[in-house]
């Protein structure tokens, strides 16, 4: 079921007394229930503009965004809040609020003018906290939470709004790798098990390609949509991130920094040691080529180059 749709949407800015700046146009997007979609794209491609427009926080330059079938611009903000919630990159300083009180703010669109929580509201808050596995954090002041814990609480807060759609703007930006994987797991579960439609923007290509049901790749005003693997195979990734001194390697699905070329070198050996030796040589600007006359030989504990032996790759790369 389509939770969020756009009809020939044009996104961009309309600066005061100047012509509109179009980021991307004629977008027909669909966010289905049970889907986790990652929005990727280079800096400045307009990911945030798209997110804000989809959330109804910024008016489109053309076309419209439909939330559960209704034009988002025509819905009262309270109704929007019951159908769509957001998690932003900015770190919030919620003052002397406990994590529990912060999640309870997610009930805002449902409570009366004084903001009183009913027993049903409290149950929903508690379920939201449990859904992200944050029960041990409930009593803690938000100001004392780590970035990862805080992000979990912000996701729980978004859940407490009981939305059909959750939009997350770089939710993993400040997190270390294990925390990023954990957040992604939580989001996948929320999408697949609870049937929510989740869209998140990220710079983490690897994680996005391993977790997302589909990728929206925004670059140069064009939005490419597809399974992660399709976008690799049809060259969309390579095109999106072309230039800027990096190249996309479709074999590994990662980026290579284009270094000054220092010639070809061969790596003799196999297994993990050979792989990482090749990586080290590439990093310092060599092209690894089995037919090259220069050779680095991998021994069980050392490396041999020319007539010398080296104890470590740091040692080796320094003397090359």
């Amino acid at each position, binding site marked *: 079921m389509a939770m969020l749709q756009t009809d020939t949407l044009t996104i961009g800015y309309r600066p005061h007394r100047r012509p509109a700046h179009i980021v991307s146009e004629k977008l027909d997007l669909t966010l289905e229930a049970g889907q986790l979609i990652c929005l990727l794209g280079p800096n400045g491609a307009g990911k945030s503009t798209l997110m804000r427009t989809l*959330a109804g*926080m910024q008016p489109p330059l053309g076309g419209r965004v439909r939330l559960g079938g209704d034009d988002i611009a025509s819905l*009262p*903000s*309270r*109704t*929007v*809040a*019951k159908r*769509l*919630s*957001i998690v*932003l990159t*900015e770190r*919030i*300083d*919620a*003052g*002397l*609020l*406990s994590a*529990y*009180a*912060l999640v*309870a*703010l*997610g009930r*805002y*669109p449902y*409570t009366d*003018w*004084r*903001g*009183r*929580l009913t027993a049903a509201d*409290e149950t929903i808050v*508690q379920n939201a906290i449990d859904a992200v596995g944050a*029960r*041990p954090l*409930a*009593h803690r*002041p938000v*100001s004392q939470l780590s970035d990862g814990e805080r992000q979990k609480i912000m996701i729980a807060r978004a859940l407490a*709004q009981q939305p059909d759609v959750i939009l997350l703007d770089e939710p993993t930006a400040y997190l270390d790798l294990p925390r990023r994987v954990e957040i992604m797991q939580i989001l996948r579960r929320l999408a697949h098990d609870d049937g929510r439609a989740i869209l998140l923007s990220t710079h983490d290509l690897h994680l996005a390609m391993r977790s997302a049901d589909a990728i929206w790749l925004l670059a140069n005003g064009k939005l490419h949509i597809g399974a992660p693997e399709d976008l690799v195979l049809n060259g969309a990734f390579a095109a999106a991130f072309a230039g800027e001194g990096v190249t996309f390697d479709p074999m590994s699905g990662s980026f290579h920094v284009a270094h000054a070329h220092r010639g070809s070198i061969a790596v003799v050996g196999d297994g993990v040691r050979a792989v990482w030796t090749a990586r080290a040589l590439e990093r310092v600007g060599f092209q690894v080529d089995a037919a090259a006359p220069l050779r680095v030989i991998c021994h069980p504990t050392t490396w041999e180059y020319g007539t010398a032996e080296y104890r470590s790759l740091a040692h080796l790369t320094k003397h090359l």
Partner: protein
Amino acid sequence: MNTTTNEHTHWPRLALRPYRLLLLIGLLLLTFTLSLSLGSVNIPFADVITILTGGEPAKATWSVIILKIRLPRAITAVLAGAALAISGLQMQTLFRNPLAGPFVLGISSGASLGVALVVLSVSTAAGGLLASLGFLGNIGIVLAATLGSAFVLIAVMLVAHRVNNMTLLILGLLFGYATSAIVSILLYFAIAERIQAYIAWTFGSFGGVTWGQLQVLIPVILFALSIAWLSAKPLNALLLGEAYARSLGLTIRRARWLILVSASMLAGAITAYCGPIGFVGVAVPHLCRSLFNTSDHRVLVPGTILIGSVVALTADLVAQLPGSDTVLPLNAVTSLLGAPIVAWVILRQRNLRASFGG
């Protein structure tokens, strides 16, 4: 996994803290009664009760002192403390700034400009026409201060929906500089006794408000306080910042308007009648957050009203120097008493940012 231990975890409770509120209500009653019985003449507690219930006290003059002077004064102090503190709370949360207070938008600058224009610029000839400083000293000053703060209030409202919060704050600051420049020019050319009258106004006082004026002040303050009560829920959403607040369904424009109207009305009305009373508005919200250990405005609004009233009554009591005929400037007392208290609270908390959500 460890669901069994989780089952025993109690969820936090988000209720008011009724005991602390009751304690504050008790403190308010105590300071209110003290401010009726203490002063240049100390009146026994029993006689205060007798007078308030319409009986005959031991001395007839006591009745006049209580009903004509101390009761309106104490009521004014309660209103002023509550009003300034709530205004400060709203400004701190709206602008996400712990230094914000009732006067950041230039309300007191507007009022002082109004008063300065009336008190200082009236030529000696016109001053003769106005007969006495007694006239200027009360109704004229209240009128001038009201007009001055109303002018700023309207200007803020007109500008508010076009600019963001930071711009509004800077505009308020600039307006303050401009008015103090005009006031210094007026002071430079004014005659000594007018300067003294102006300076006296800047000291602040709860004493000048009559029963007749209270008939205006009470409804205005109660009206603005009830708007503030309505703003508790929006203020909670604003703790998360405007983007999140909007995503929760808050109509930012309406909420901001509501908050600015009530905060400015509170600050403006009190400044008009009592002069620019500093410190209470900035300090009390911090005291309240610290006492209740929360940023939840459903707790902070009633808490701040009570603490504000208690602080204002206490400051006025100290300024009276009970038992003596000397009266200290109220503004000096609020700052002298308040600064160390707030410093202590902030140092104890170690993290001001965390305490208000900025």
